[in-house]
């Protein structure tokens, strides 16, 4: 009880302190500096209308490469930690026909929508991560509905690796062509899609990278789900 009281008092003081700091960063006021630059130049410099996407994939490409890496680490790490000689699902109850049938019907659509999300990343609020997460949701549903379901592990792992390499390769191609790692030669050199900004085939290499990320995130999250749902069984 004392501990709780102490915690609350401490936290209130810390909160007050944070609030004091935040008071110097007034809410809703324009504090943009670099942000405004992005808004002013995003279309002409990247061919994307979604400034967030342009920042994520293009201007701050290193962040995103890192982000992809983080998820890869999680997938690898979970795989490493939960690795056992033999592991199986241990769910006891079968999904009812309502769930299994619903899943059958939904899975293609969920996947399609996942792809839609990452393909349109430069135009809509989507992107590789929500897209990938949506795809993983399709696999999650399969796991939930069918207690014996398993993703094709080898294929998934290889996909993970290959698309990851593809991302880095895209960056290295940029280095070779434009002299900079992650240089968007599709937009900068080719000006591909310059005449139809706002339509699907635009945005330089953003859709390519988002496709890569989408696939990667989808496979990784699915792999994590797979790992989490299995338990060691004695042989």
């Amino acid at each position, binding site marked *: 009880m004392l501990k709780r009281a102490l915690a609350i008092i401490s936290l209130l003081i810390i909160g007050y302190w944070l609030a004091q700091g935040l008071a110097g960063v007034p809410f809703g006021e324009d504090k943009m500096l670099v942000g405004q630059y992005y808004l002013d130049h995003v279309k002409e410099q990247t061919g994307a209308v979604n400034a967030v996407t342009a920042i994520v994939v293009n201007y701050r490409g290193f962040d995103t490469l890192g982000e992809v890496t983080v998820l890869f680490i999680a997938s690898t790490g979970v795989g490493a930690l939960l690795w056992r000689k033999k592991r199986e699902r241990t*769910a006891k109850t079968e999904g009812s026909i309502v769930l299994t049938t619903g899943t059958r019907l939904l899975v293609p659509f*969920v996947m399609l*929508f996942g792809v839609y999300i990452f393909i349109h990343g430069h135009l*809509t609020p989507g992107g590789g991560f929500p897209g990938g997460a*949506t795809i993983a949701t399709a696999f999650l549903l399969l796991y939930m509905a069918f207690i014996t379901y398993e993703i094709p592990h080898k294929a998934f792992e290889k996909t993970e690796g290959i698309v990851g390499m593809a991302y880095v390769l895209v960056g290295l191609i940029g280095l070779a062509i434009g002299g900079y790692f992650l240089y968007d030669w599709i937009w900068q050199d080719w000006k591909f899609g310059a005449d139809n900004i706002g339509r699907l085939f635009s945005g330089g290499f953003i859709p390519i990278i988002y496709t890569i990320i989408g696939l990667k995130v989808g496979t990784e999250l699915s792999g994590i789900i797979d790992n989490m*749902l299995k338990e060691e069984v004695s042989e």
Partner: protein
Amino acid sequence: MIGINVYLALIAIATLLSMYRVFRGPTTVDRLVAVDIMTTITAGLMVLFALYYERMIFLDVALVYAMLAFGGVIAFARYMEGGL
């Protein structure tokens, strides 16, 4: 024109009531049901926001949200049912 405030008020009340059930329980499934309702309401709210901000692209967000929430609720429900 009744104005956005009425909808928002209704939605806010609904959310608060659901929140009450989330905290109150008493069973885990009760909380889950409340969460499920909240996600549905939130999806509606997102659609409303799309209209309010006059951005159609926000509709996609609502759909993604609905999908992810569905997956989550199913997973929890299956967990409660007897392990995953």
